[in-house]
C-alpha cells in the first residue's frame, strides 16, 4: 500500500467509526458543563469570601476536571472516531480544499453552546484571585491626615507662624507628623492685595490674606506647583490647569473641572497655623 499512498499529499482515513447520537452523551456534556460553571463560580465566591484552600482549591479541581470531561464527551459526539495515515515525506502540491479533511457530523448546536458558555463562566471565574493583589480601598482615598488642631509644618517639619509667611509667596506644607503624605499636601498662599472673595470660605482665611488649598491637582493628581503673583493664579505644570487663588481656587483655564479643595485654616494660641478639620470636599483627581 505504500507506493499508492506515497503519492497522496495528505491525510488518508484508514478506519472510521461514527458514534450514534446518544441522549446519554448529551446529558453528560450538559451535566459536566453545568458542574464546571458552578464549580467556577464556587471558586470565585470561595476566594472572595476568603474561605480556606480546601474549599476554593476543591472547587477549582472539580471545575477543571468536569470541563475536561465535558470537552471529551463533546468531541466524541461531534466527530467520528477515525484512524488515519500520513506519508512521512509528502509531495508539495498546491491544495485549496477546506482545512480539515474530517468534517463534523450534523449534530445539535446546544451541546457546543452549553460547553462554550460553561467554559466562559469558568474562565471568568479564574479572575477571582485578582482582588488578592491589593487591599480594598475603603475610604483611604477620601480622607487625608488633616484633623482639627493639626499644625501646618514645612517639609523640614517646622511649624509655621501666621506672621512668618512672605507676601505673594506660596509654600508647600504638611500635617504635623505626616510630611510627604502625598494626598495631604497643601499649598499655603499669602495673597498680596487682600481681596479674597466668594466662593472662598472666608472663615477659613487667616488675617484676610493667608489661605490654604489641597496641592493635589483635581485633574490628574500632579502637584500644583506654580503661583503667578500678578493675577493670583495657581498653575499645574502637567496639563496647564489654572486656579484662581482669591476665588476659592476655581478653575479658570485648562482641563480640570473642579476647584482645589480649601483647607479649613486657623491659628492656635501660640500663633502657629493649624487646620480646623479635614477637607470637606474630595481631594485630588476624580475616581469611582
Amino acid at each position, binding site marked *: 500500500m505504500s507506493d499508492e499512498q506515497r503519492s497522496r499529499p495528505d491525510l488518508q482515513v484508514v478506519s472510521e467509526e461514527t458514534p450514534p447520537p446518544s441522549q446519554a452523551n448529551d446529558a453528560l456534556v450538559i451535566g459536566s458543563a453545568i458542574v464546571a460553571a458552578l464549580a467556577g463560580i464556587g471558586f470565585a465566591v470561595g476566594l472572595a469570601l476568603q474561605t480556606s484552600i480546601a474549599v476554593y*482549591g476543591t472547587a477549582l479541581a472539580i471545575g477543571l476536571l468536569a470541563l475536561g470531561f465535558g470537552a471529551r464527551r463533546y*468531541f466524541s459526539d461531534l466527530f467520528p472516531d477515525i484512524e488515519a495515515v500520513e506519508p512521512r515525506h509528502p509531495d508539495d502540491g498546491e491544495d485549496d*480544499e477546506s482545512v480539515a479533511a474530517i468534517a463534523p457530523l450534523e449534530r445539535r448546536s446546544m451541546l457546543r453552546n452549553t460547553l462554550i458558555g460553561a467554559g466562559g463562566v469558568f474562565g471568568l471565574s479564574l479572575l477571582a484571585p485578582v482582588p488578592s493583589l491589593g487591599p480594598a480601598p475603603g475610604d483611604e482615598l477620601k480622607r487625608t491626615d488633616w484633623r482639627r488642631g493639626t499644625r501646618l509644618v514645612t517639609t523640614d517639619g517646622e511649624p509655621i507662624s501666621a506672621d512668618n509667611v512672605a507676601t505673594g509667596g506660596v509654600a508647600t506644607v504638611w500635617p504635623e507628623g505626616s510630611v510627604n503624605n502625598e494626598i495631604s499636601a497643601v499649598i499655603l498662599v499669602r495673597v498680596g492685595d487682600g481681596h479674597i472673595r466668594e466662593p472662598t470660605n472666608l472663615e477659613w482665611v487667616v488675617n484676610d490674606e493667608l489661605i490654604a488649598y489641597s496641592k493635589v491637582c483635581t485633574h490628574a493628581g500632579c502637584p500644583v506647583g506654580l503661583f503667578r503673583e500678578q493675577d493670583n493664579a495657581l498653575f499645574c505644570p502637567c496639563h496647564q490647569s489654572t486656579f484662581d487663588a482669591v476665588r476659592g481656587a476655581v478653575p479658570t483655564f485648562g482641563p480640570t473641572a473642579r476647584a482645589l479643595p480649601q483647607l479649613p485654616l486657623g491659628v492656635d494660641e501660640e500663633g502657629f497655623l493649624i487646620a480646623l478639620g479635614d477637607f470637606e470636599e474630595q481631594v485630588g483627581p476624580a475616581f469611582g
Partner: protein
Amino acid sequence: MTPLFGKLLDELDARLHVRRDARRTANKVFPSNWSFLLGEVAVFSLVILVLTGIFLTFFYRPNVEMITYTGSNPVFAGRSLPAAFESIVRLSSDVNGGLLFRRLHRGASHLFIATIVLHMLRIMLTGAFRKPRELNYFVGIGLLTLAFGAGFTGYSLPYDSLAGTGIRIAYTELLSLPLIGDRVAFWIFGGAFPTGDVIPRFFVLHVMVLPAAIIATVGLHLFMVYRQKHTQFPRLGVDGHNLVLGKPLWPLQFAESTTLFLWTGGLLAAAAVLIPWSDVSLLGPYIPGEVGNNAQPDWFLFWLEGALRIFPPLEFTIPPGIVISGPFVAGVVLPGLIFTFLALYPFLEKRVYDLSGEWHVLQNPLEIPLRAGVMLGVFSGLLILSAAATNDILSRMLGIPIEMITWIARVAVIVVPVVLGLWIARYSRKRLRRRGLDVPSSEVDGQERYIAA
C-alpha cells in the same frame, strides 16, 4: 470545522494565506500510546508554571535583609525574618489564595520534571533518539538540564532552612572547580557566601532567564517534532517506515490534548488541597550556621546529593596548586560524564551495530542487547545514588549504622549497575537467538523480519 472557526479562518486566509499550512497542521497524525502523552503533560505543566509563577512574582521579594513579619501566621508573628522568607510566609498566610498558587506552582514543578524524566526514559528505551532525531535528543537533554536549573533556583527562593543549605552546597560545587572555582563562585554569588546578592540573582534566573530559555527550547523541540513527524510503535500490516498511523490533530488529538490539559490542571488543584507542598512553617528561615537534620534537595537532585554523600574522601593538589576535591569529582565530573555518555549513546549504538538509514519505528530495548544493558546499568546506578541521598533516613529506619549503609551504597553503585547491565544484555542476546533474530542494521530490514515473524 465548526462554522464560527471556519469563518474566522476564511477571513485570516484572505489576508495571510494560512489555509494550506493550517490544513497540513490539522491533518498532522499523532500515533496513540499513553507514553506519548508524557511530553504533553510536561508542556501543560510548563503553562501552569508560567501562569501561577506570574501571580507569585507579584508578591515575592528577592531580598535577604531582615524585616519584621507582622501578618497573621502565629509561628512567625512579630519575628524578624529574611525579606524573601517573610514574603513567602505573607503570601501563604495573608494573601487570599496565595497558598493555593504556591502549591499549584510547586506541584506543577514536580510534575514538569517528573514527566520530562519519564519522557526521556521512553525515548531512550524505545530508541526514538536514532537518526534523524539525534538533534532533538540533544535539545531534550538541554531541556532537562534547564529544568533542573529552574527547579533548583525555585527551591532556593523561599530562603528557608533547606534552601539556604542547598545554596551553600551549590556554592561549594562552584568553588570546587579547579583553578577558576573561587572566581566563578564569586561571580555568581557576588562575593563570599552568604552574600545578599545570591537571592536577587537566583530570582532573575528563575523568573526570566531560565523560563525564557525553557520556552524557546520547548518551541524548538516541538518544531522539530512537527518537521520530522512522530515515531510510532510497530503494527502488523503498517509500513511504519513510510507512513504515520494515528489520530489527526484536528479534531481527535486536539480533543485529547484539551482534556489532558484540563485534567492536569484539575489534578494539580486537587493535589494542592491534599498535599502541603513545601510548608515553610515546618522549616523556618535560613540562618547561616544552622542546618536541620533533614537536609535533602528535591527528589530530582537526589542522585547528585547521593554521589556527594558516598564519594570517598579525596583531596589533593597537583603542582603548581590545582586542587582536586571529592565534591568536584562527585558533583561536577561524575554528572558531566553521565550526561555526556547519555548524549553520545546514539552514536555508540550506531557504531556497534553498524546502523544505517532513518529510524521511525520504535523498538523494545530487549531487541538491542547493548541498549538494554546500558539503560539498566545507568538508571540503576542513578537510583542507587538517589537512595544514598537518604542514607541517614535509611539508617534510622533500618537500625543499621550509617557507616555501614554508606559502604553498602559505595559497593552497590559500582557492582549492581555492572551486574544488572551485563545480565540484561546477556538475557536479550539469548532472547534474540531463541527467536532466530539478530539486531537489524536498517529499519526496512527490521520491518521485514518483524512482519515475517
